[in-house]
Protein backbone atom coordinates (compact mmCIF):
# COMPACT_ATOMS: atom_id res chain seq x y z
CA UNK A 1 0.00 0.00 0.00
CA UNK A 2 1.36 3.41 -0.92
CA UNK A 3 2.00 5.53 2.15
CA UNK A 4 0.54 8.53 0.33
CA UNK A 5 -2.85 7.01 -0.20
CA UNK A 6 -5.54 7.56 2.41
CA UNK A 7 -6.16 4.18 4.09
CA UNK A 8 -9.54 2.63 3.39
CA UNK A 9 -12.07 2.68 6.22
CA UNK A 10 -11.80 -0.45 8.33
CA UNK A 11 -14.54 -2.96 7.57
CA UNK A 12 -17.45 -3.35 9.97
CA UNK A 13 -17.89 -5.14 12.37
CA UNK A 14 -15.24 -3.55 14.50
CA UNK A 15 -11.59 -4.36 13.92
CA UNK A 16 -8.90 -2.91 16.18
CA UNK A 17 -7.23 -0.04 14.38
CA UNK A 18 -3.50 -0.59 14.78
CA UNK A 19 -2.30 2.93 14.04
CA UNK A 20 -4.76 4.50 16.45
CA UNK A 21 -3.86 1.97 19.12
CA UNK A 22 -0.23 2.76 18.55
CA UNK A 23 -0.67 6.48 18.85
CA UNK A 24 -2.61 5.96 22.06
CA UNK A 25 0.08 3.66 23.39
CA UNK A 26 2.82 6.16 22.58
CA UNK A 27 1.00 8.91 24.45
CA UNK A 28 0.45 6.59 27.40
CA UNK A 29 4.05 5.44 27.39
CA UNK A 30 5.33 9.00 27.52
CA UNK A 31 2.83 9.86 30.22
CA UNK A 32 4.13 7.00 32.32
CA UNK A 33 7.73 8.04 31.85
CA UNK A 34 6.97 11.66 32.72
CA UNK A 35 5.14 10.54 35.86
CA UNK A 36 8.00 8.32 36.96
CA UNK A 37 10.64 10.98 36.36
CA UNK A 38 8.58 13.55 38.25
CA UNK A 39 8.06 11.21 41.19
CA UNK A 40 11.74 10.23 41.20
CA UNK A 41 12.69 13.93 41.30
CA UNK A 42 10.36 14.53 44.26
CA UNK A 43 11.69 11.45 46.07
CA UNK A 44 15.24 12.63 45.42
CA UNK A 45 14.50 16.11 46.79
CA UNK A 46 12.98 14.52 49.87
CA UNK A 47 16.00 12.25 50.20
CA UNK A 48 18.35 15.26 50.26
CA UNK A 49 16.43 16.89 53.12
CA UNK A 50 16.09 13.60 55.00
CA UNK A 51 19.76 12.67 54.66
CA UNK A 52 20.96 16.18 55.52
CA UNK A 53 19.09 15.95 58.81
CA UNK A 54 19.34 12.29 59.78
CA UNK A 55 22.50 10.99 58.08
CA UNK A 56 24.26 9.98 61.30
CA UNK A 57 21.36 8.42 63.15
CA UNK A 58 21.30 4.63 63.35
CA UNK A 59 19.19 2.85 60.70
CA UNK A 60 17.01 0.05 62.04
CA UNK A 61 14.33 -1.80 60.15
CA UNK A 62 14.51 -5.05 62.09
CA UNK A 63 11.36 -4.44 64.03
CA UNK A 64 8.13 -3.62 62.30
CA UNK A 65 6.36 -0.70 63.91
CA UNK A 66 4.25 0.53 61.03
CA UNK A 67 4.47 4.08 59.82
CA UNK A 68 2.91 7.00 61.71
CA UNK A 69 -0.26 8.53 60.24
CA UNK A 70 1.80 11.30 58.67
CA UNK A 71 3.29 8.77 56.25
CA UNK A 72 0.26 6.56 55.67
CA UNK A 73 -2.58 8.83 54.59
CA UNK A 74 -2.86 11.46 51.87
CA UNK A 75 -3.75 14.31 54.29
CA UNK A 76 -0.96 13.15 56.58
CA UNK A 77 1.62 13.24 53.80
CA UNK A 78 0.50 16.69 52.68
CA UNK A 79 0.67 17.89 56.28
CA UNK A 80 4.23 16.66 56.71
CA UNK A 81 5.30 18.16 53.37
CA UNK A 82 3.92 21.51 54.54
CA UNK A 83 6.10 21.18 57.61
CA UNK A 84 9.14 20.72 55.38
CA UNK A 85 9.74 17.08 56.32
CA UNK A 86 12.04 15.19 53.98
CA UNK A 87 10.30 11.88 54.57
CA UNK A 88 6.95 13.55 53.85
CA UNK A 89 8.34 14.67 50.50
CA UNK A 90 9.55 11.12 49.78
CA UNK A 91 6.05 9.77 50.50
CA UNK A 92 4.57 12.46 48.24
CA UNK A 93 6.87 11.25 45.45
CA UNK A 94 5.74 7.68 46.09
CA UNK A 95 2.09 8.78 45.97
CA UNK A 96 2.81 10.40 42.58
CA UNK A 97 4.38 7.14 41.50
CA UNK A 98 1.27 5.17 42.48
CA UNK A 99 -0.88 7.76 40.71
CA UNK A 100 1.01 7.32 37.42
CA UNK A 101 -0.45 3.96 36.38
CA UNK A 102 -3.83 5.14 37.61
CA UNK A 103 -3.54 8.14 35.28
CA UNK A 104 -2.59 5.75 32.50
CA UNK A 105 -5.74 3.72 33.06
CA UNK A 106 -7.87 6.88 33.16
CA UNK A 107 -6.45 8.04 29.84
CA UNK A 108 -7.11 4.61 28.39
CA UNK A 109 -10.81 5.06 29.16
CA UNK A 110 -10.77 8.21 27.04
CA UNK A 111 -8.74 6.51 24.32
CA UNK A 112 -11.11 3.57 24.03
CA UNK A 113 -14.08 5.95 24.09
CA UNK A 114 -12.61 7.87 21.14
CA UNK A 115 -12.22 4.56 19.32
CA UNK A 116 -15.87 3.83 20.20
CA UNK A 117 -14.83 0.55 21.72
CA UNK A 118 -17.54 0.19 24.33
CA UNK A 119 -16.41 -3.20 25.58
CA UNK A 120 -12.95 -1.90 26.45
CA UNK A 121 -14.31 1.28 27.98
CA UNK A 122 -16.17 -0.97 30.42
CA UNK A 123 -13.12 -3.20 31.03
CA UNK A 124 -10.97 -0.16 31.73
CA UNK A 125 -13.55 1.36 34.06
CA UNK A 126 -13.57 -1.90 36.06
CA UNK A 127 -9.78 -1.70 36.45
CA UNK A 128 -10.02 1.96 37.42
CA UNK A 129 -12.68 1.18 40.03
CA UNK A 130 -10.46 -1.49 41.62
CA UNK A 131 -7.51 0.92 41.70
CA UNK A 132 -9.52 3.73 43.26
CA UNK A 133 -11.04 1.37 45.78
CA UNK A 134 -7.56 0.27 46.82
CA UNK A 135 -6.33 3.82 47.17
CA UNK A 136 -9.33 5.38 48.87
CA UNK A 137 -11.12 2.41 50.37
CA UNK A 138 -8.15 1.23 52.40
CA UNK A 139 -8.14 4.25 54.67
CA UNK A 140 -5.53 6.28 52.85
CA UNK A 141 -7.99 9.10 52.34
CA UNK A 142 -7.36 9.88 55.98
Amino acid sequence: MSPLRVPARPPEPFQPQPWRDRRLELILGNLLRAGVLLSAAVVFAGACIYLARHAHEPANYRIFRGEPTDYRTIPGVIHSVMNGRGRGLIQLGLLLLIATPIARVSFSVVGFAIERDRMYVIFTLIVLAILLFSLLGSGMGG
Partner: protein
Amino acid sequence: MTVLGFTAVVAIVSFAAGLLGSLTGLGGGVVLVPLLTILFHVDIRYAIGASLVSVIATSSGAAAAYVKEGFSNIRIGMFLEIATTFGALLGAFLATRIPTSALAVIFGAVLLYSAYLSRKPRPLDQRNLPPDPLATKLRLNGSFPDLEGKRDYNVQHVPTGFSLMLGAGALSGLLGIGSGAVKVLAMDQAMRIPFKVSTTTSNFMIGVTAAASAGVYLSRGYVDPGLAMPVMLGVLGGSLVGTRILVKAETKSLRLVFSVVILVLGLQMLYKGLWGKI
Protein backbone atom coordinates in the same frame (compact mmCIF):
# COMPACT_ATOMS: atom_id res chain seq x y z
CA MET B 1 24.83 1.23 60.46
CA THR B 2 24.02 4.90 60.09
CA VAL B 3 21.18 6.17 57.94
CA LEU B 4 23.65 7.48 55.35
CA GLY B 5 25.58 4.21 55.07
CA PHE B 6 22.42 2.13 55.01
CA THR B 7 20.89 4.32 52.30
CA ALA B 8 24.02 4.12 50.15
CA VAL B 9 24.41 0.34 50.42
CA VAL B 10 20.72 -0.34 49.81
CA ALA B 11 20.77 1.99 46.80
CA ILE B 12 23.76 0.15 45.29
CA VAL B 13 22.23 -3.30 45.85
CA SER B 14 18.91 -2.08 44.42
CA PHE B 15 20.68 -0.65 41.37
CA ALA B 16 22.34 -4.01 40.75
CA ALA B 17 19.03 -5.84 41.20
CA GLY B 18 17.28 -3.49 38.78
CA LEU B 19 20.07 -3.81 36.22
CA LEU B 20 20.24 -7.60 36.38
CA GLY B 21 16.46 -7.86 36.50
CA SER B 22 15.98 -5.92 33.31
CA LEU B 23 18.94 -7.48 31.48
CA THR B 24 17.77 -11.01 32.19
CA GLY B 25 14.07 -10.25 31.95
CA LEU B 26 13.55 -11.94 35.30
CA GLY B 27 12.64 -8.75 37.15
CA GLY B 28 14.51 -7.13 40.02
CA GLY B 29 11.72 -7.21 42.57
CA VAL B 30 11.97 -10.92 43.13
CA VAL B 31 15.49 -10.69 44.62
CA LEU B 32 14.98 -7.42 46.51
CA VAL B 33 12.80 -8.68 49.32
CA PRO B 34 15.05 -11.65 50.19
CA LEU B 35 18.16 -9.46 49.92
CA LEU B 36 16.69 -6.84 52.21
CA THR B 37 15.51 -9.39 54.75
CA ILE B 38 18.53 -11.71 54.69
CA LEU B 39 21.42 -9.25 54.19
CA PHE B 40 20.05 -6.15 55.88
CA HIS B 41 17.75 -7.80 58.43
CA VAL B 42 14.85 -5.65 57.35
CA ASP B 43 11.42 -6.82 58.54
CA ILE B 44 9.78 -8.59 55.60
CA ARG B 45 6.79 -6.25 55.70
CA TYR B 46 8.94 -3.15 55.18
CA ALA B 47 10.86 -5.01 52.48
CA ILE B 48 7.66 -5.93 50.63
CA GLY B 49 6.38 -2.35 50.82
CA ALA B 50 9.61 -0.93 49.39
CA SER B 51 9.83 -3.60 46.68
CA LEU B 52 6.26 -3.02 45.56
CA VAL B 53 6.94 0.68 45.07
CA SER B 54 10.05 -0.08 43.01
CA VAL B 55 8.04 -2.47 40.84
CA ILE B 56 5.73 0.39 39.84
CA ALA B 57 8.74 2.56 39.05
CA THR B 58 10.47 0.04 36.77
CA SER B 59 7.31 -0.91 34.96
CA SER B 60 6.29 2.67 34.24
CA GLY B 61 9.83 3.80 33.53
CA ALA B 62 10.42 1.13 30.90
CA ALA B 63 6.99 1.50 29.32
CA ALA B 64 7.94 4.37 27.01
CA ALA B 65 10.89 2.44 25.60
CA TYR B 66 8.82 -0.71 25.08
CA VAL B 67 5.92 1.11 23.47
CA LYS B 68 8.21 2.63 20.85
CA GLU B 69 9.09 -0.87 19.66
CA GLY B 70 5.44 -1.56 18.96
CA PHE B 71 5.19 -5.00 20.51
CA SER B 72 2.75 -4.47 23.36
CA ASN B 73 -0.96 -5.16 22.98
CA ILE B 74 -3.02 -2.65 24.91
CA ARG B 75 -6.20 -4.75 24.77
CA ILE B 76 -4.60 -7.91 26.11
CA GLY B 77 -3.07 -5.76 28.84
CA MET B 78 -6.28 -4.06 29.86
CA PHE B 79 -8.35 -7.24 29.75
CA LEU B 80 -5.91 -9.17 31.92
CA GLU B 81 -5.49 -6.22 34.28
CA ILE B 82 -9.06 -6.87 35.47
CA ALA B 83 -7.72 -10.18 36.79
CA THR B 84 -4.38 -8.93 38.10
CA THR B 85 -5.68 -5.84 39.92
CA PHE B 86 -8.46 -7.83 41.57
CA GLY B 87 -5.98 -10.49 42.57
CA ALA B 88 -3.53 -7.87 43.83
CA LEU B 89 -6.15 -6.31 46.05
CA LEU B 90 -6.97 -9.72 47.55
CA GLY B 91 -3.28 -10.50 47.96
CA ALA B 92 -2.56 -7.24 49.75
CA PHE B 93 -5.39 -7.74 52.22
CA LEU B 94 -4.24 -11.31 52.78
CA ALA B 95 -0.66 -10.15 53.38
CA THR B 96 -1.74 -8.07 56.35
CA ARG B 97 -3.36 -11.11 57.94
CA ILE B 98 -1.00 -14.04 57.53
CA PRO B 99 2.14 -14.52 59.66
CA THR B 100 5.47 -13.33 58.27
CA SER B 101 6.93 -16.85 58.39
CA ALA B 102 4.21 -18.00 55.98
CA LEU B 103 5.04 -15.05 53.72
CA ALA B 104 8.68 -16.15 53.71
CA VAL B 105 7.74 -19.74 52.79
CA ILE B 106 5.51 -18.64 49.90
CA PHE B 107 8.26 -16.28 48.79
CA GLY B 108 10.81 -19.08 48.86
CA ALA B 109 8.56 -21.30 46.75
CA VAL B 110 8.06 -18.55 44.17
CA LEU B 111 11.82 -17.97 44.01
CA LEU B 112 12.55 -21.66 43.47
CA TYR B 113 9.94 -21.82 40.75
CA SER B 114 11.40 -18.70 39.10
CA ALA B 115 14.87 -20.23 39.17
CA TYR B 116 13.54 -23.41 37.58
CA LEU B 117 11.67 -21.43 34.94
CA SER B 118 14.68 -19.32 34.06
CA ARG B 119 16.70 -22.46 33.21
CA LYS B 120 13.98 -23.87 31.00
CA PRO B 121 14.11 -22.83 27.36
CA ARG B 122 11.20 -20.56 26.70
CA PRO B 123 8.38 -22.11 24.66
CA LEU B 124 8.79 -21.53 20.96
CA ASP B 125 6.37 -19.08 19.46
CA GLN B 126 3.79 -21.13 17.63
CA ARG B 127 2.80 -19.56 14.38
CA ASN B 128 -0.44 -19.74 12.44
CA LEU B 129 -2.61 -20.87 15.33
CA PRO B 130 -6.32 -20.86 14.51
CA PRO B 131 -8.32 -17.92 15.88
CA ASP B 132 -10.08 -18.70 19.15
CA PRO B 133 -13.73 -17.52 19.21
CA LEU B 134 -13.52 -15.93 22.66
CA ALA B 135 -10.23 -14.17 21.90
CA THR B 136 -11.71 -12.88 18.68
CA LYS B 137 -14.78 -11.63 20.49
CA LEU B 138 -12.57 -9.85 23.02
CA ARG B 139 -10.43 -8.43 20.17
CA LEU B 140 -7.23 -9.77 21.71
CA ASN B 141 -5.58 -10.90 18.48
CA GLY B 142 -3.04 -8.58 16.97
CA SER B 143 0.16 -8.19 15.07
CA PHE B 144 3.66 -6.91 15.71
CA PRO B 145 6.67 -5.87 13.67
CA ASP B 146 8.93 -8.79 12.86
CA LEU B 147 12.04 -9.37 10.77
CA GLU B 148 9.86 -10.22 7.79
CA GLY B 149 7.60 -7.22 8.35
CA LYS B 150 4.31 -7.70 10.17
CA ARG B 151 3.40 -10.87 12.02
CA ASP B 152 -0.16 -11.70 13.08
CA TYR B 153 -0.98 -13.82 16.09
CA ASN B 154 -4.09 -15.42 17.54
CA VAL B 155 -4.50 -15.62 21.30
CA GLN B 156 -5.54 -19.01 22.76
CA HIS B 157 -7.11 -20.35 25.98
CA VAL B 158 -8.42 -17.06 27.35
CA PRO B 159 -10.18 -18.43 30.49
CA THR B 160 -7.06 -20.33 31.62
CA GLY B 161 -4.87 -17.29 31.07
CA PHE B 162 -7.30 -15.04 32.89
CA SER B 163 -7.46 -17.32 35.95
CA LEU B 164 -3.68 -17.65 36.06
CA MET B 165 -3.38 -13.87 35.94
CA LEU B 166 -5.66 -13.69 38.98
CA GLY B 167 -3.04 -15.81 40.73
CA ALA B 168 -0.23 -13.62 39.39
CA GLY B 169 -1.98 -10.55 40.77
CA ALA B 170 -2.54 -12.20 44.14
CA LEU B 171 1.14 -13.14 44.41
CA SER B 172 2.14 -9.63 43.41
CA GLY B 173 -0.07 -8.15 46.11
CA LEU B 174 1.02 -10.71 48.68
CA LEU B 175 4.77 -10.48 48.11
CA GLY B 176 5.33 -7.06 46.54
CA ILE B 177 6.81 -8.49 43.34
CA GLY B 178 5.99 -8.27 39.64
CA SER B 179 5.11 -12.00 39.37
CA GLY B 180 6.97 -12.49 36.10
CA ALA B 181 7.07 -16.25 36.63
CA VAL B 182 3.30 -16.73 36.74
CA LYS B 183 2.92 -14.34 33.84
CA VAL B 184 5.07 -16.63 31.71
CA LEU B 185 2.72 -19.48 32.55
CA ALA B 186 -0.38 -17.49 31.74
CA MET B 187 0.59 -15.43 28.71
CA ASP B 188 3.30 -17.48 27.04
CA GLN B 189 2.24 -21.03 27.75
CA ALA B 190 -1.54 -20.87 28.11
CA MET B 191 -2.51 -17.98 25.87
CA ARG B 192 0.33 -18.59 23.38
CA ILE B 193 1.12 -14.90 23.04
CA PRO B 194 4.42 -14.37 21.18
CA PHE B 195 7.30 -13.80 23.57
CA LYS B 196 8.01 -10.20 22.59
CA VAL B 197 4.36 -9.22 22.87
CA SER B 198 3.84 -10.94 26.22
CA THR B 199 7.00 -9.45 27.74
CA THR B 200 6.25 -5.88 26.80
CA THR B 201 2.54 -6.17 27.54
CA SER B 202 3.15 -7.67 30.97
CA ASN B 203 5.64 -4.91 31.73
CA PHE B 204 2.83 -2.47 31.10
CA MET B 205 0.50 -4.45 33.34
CA ILE B 206 2.88 -4.88 36.25
CA GLY B 207 2.73 -1.20 37.21
CA VAL B 208 -1.05 -1.13 37.25
CA THR B 209 -1.16 -4.39 39.21
CA ALA B 210 1.28 -3.09 41.80
CA ALA B 211 -0.63 0.19 42.10
CA ALA B 212 -3.69 -1.84 43.10
CA SER B 213 -1.97 -3.22 46.18
CA ALA B 214 0.22 -0.17 46.91
CA GLY B 215 -2.71 1.72 48.39
CA VAL B 216 -3.31 -1.06 50.90
CA TYR B 217 0.39 -1.25 51.81
CA LEU B 218 0.78 2.48 52.21
CA SER B 219 -2.26 2.85 54.41
CA ARG B 220 -1.13 -0.08 56.59
CA GLY B 221 2.23 1.60 57.17
CA TYR B 222 4.35 -0.92 55.22
CA VAL B 223 5.99 1.73 53.05
CA ASP B 224 8.79 3.38 55.01
CA PRO B 225 10.15 6.49 53.27
CA GLY B 226 13.71 5.95 54.51
CA LEU B 227 13.81 2.43 53.05
CA ALA B 228 11.62 2.87 49.97
CA MET B 229 13.66 5.87 48.80
CA PRO B 230 17.00 4.13 48.07
CA VAL B 231 15.20 1.01 46.83
CA MET B 232 12.99 2.90 44.38
CA LEU B 233 15.72 5.21 43.07
CA GLY B 234 18.26 2.37 42.84
CA VAL B 235 16.02 -0.11 41.06
CA LEU B 236 14.69 2.55 38.69
CA GLY B 237 18.20 3.69 37.78
CA GLY B 238 19.41 0.12 37.28
CA SER B 239 16.49 -0.90 35.11
CA LEU B 240 16.72 2.22 32.96
CA VAL B 241 20.39 1.50 32.30
CA GLY B 242 19.45 -2.15 31.68
CA THR B 243 16.85 -1.40 29.01
CA ARG B 244 19.40 0.85 27.25
CA ILE B 245 21.97 -1.90 26.85
CA LEU B 246 19.51 -4.78 26.56
CA VAL B 247 19.65 -4.88 22.79
CA LYS B 248 23.38 -5.47 22.64
CA ALA B 249 24.07 -7.53 25.74
CA GLU B 250 24.74 -11.26 25.69
CA THR B 251 22.45 -12.35 28.48
CA LYS B 252 22.92 -16.11 28.54
CA SER B 253 25.63 -16.29 31.19
CA LEU B 254 24.03 -13.42 33.09
CA ARG B 255 20.81 -15.39 33.26
CA LEU B 256 22.70 -18.36 34.67
CA VAL B 257 24.32 -16.26 37.40
CA PHE B 258 21.06 -14.56 38.22
CA SER B 259 19.10 -17.80 38.41
CA VAL B 260 21.68 -19.26 40.80
CA VAL B 261 21.25 -16.14 42.97
CA ILE B 262 17.48 -16.63 42.87
CA LEU B 263 17.86 -20.31 43.80
CA VAL B 264 20.08 -19.57 46.80
CA LEU B 265 17.79 -16.79 48.00
CA GLY B 266 14.79 -19.09 47.59
CA LEU B 267 16.36 -21.80 49.76
CA GLN B 268 17.28 -19.19 52.38
CA MET B 269 13.75 -17.83 52.49
CA LEU B 270 12.27 -21.33 52.81
CA TYR B 271 14.68 -22.14 55.62
CA LYS B 272 14.02 -18.90 57.45
CA GLY B 273 10.29 -19.24 57.04
CA LEU B 274 10.08 -22.90 58.07
CA TRP B 275 12.34 -22.50 61.09
CA GLY B 276 10.60 -19.34 62.17
CA LYS B 277 13.67 -17.14 61.87
CA ILE B 278 11.83 -14.32 60.20
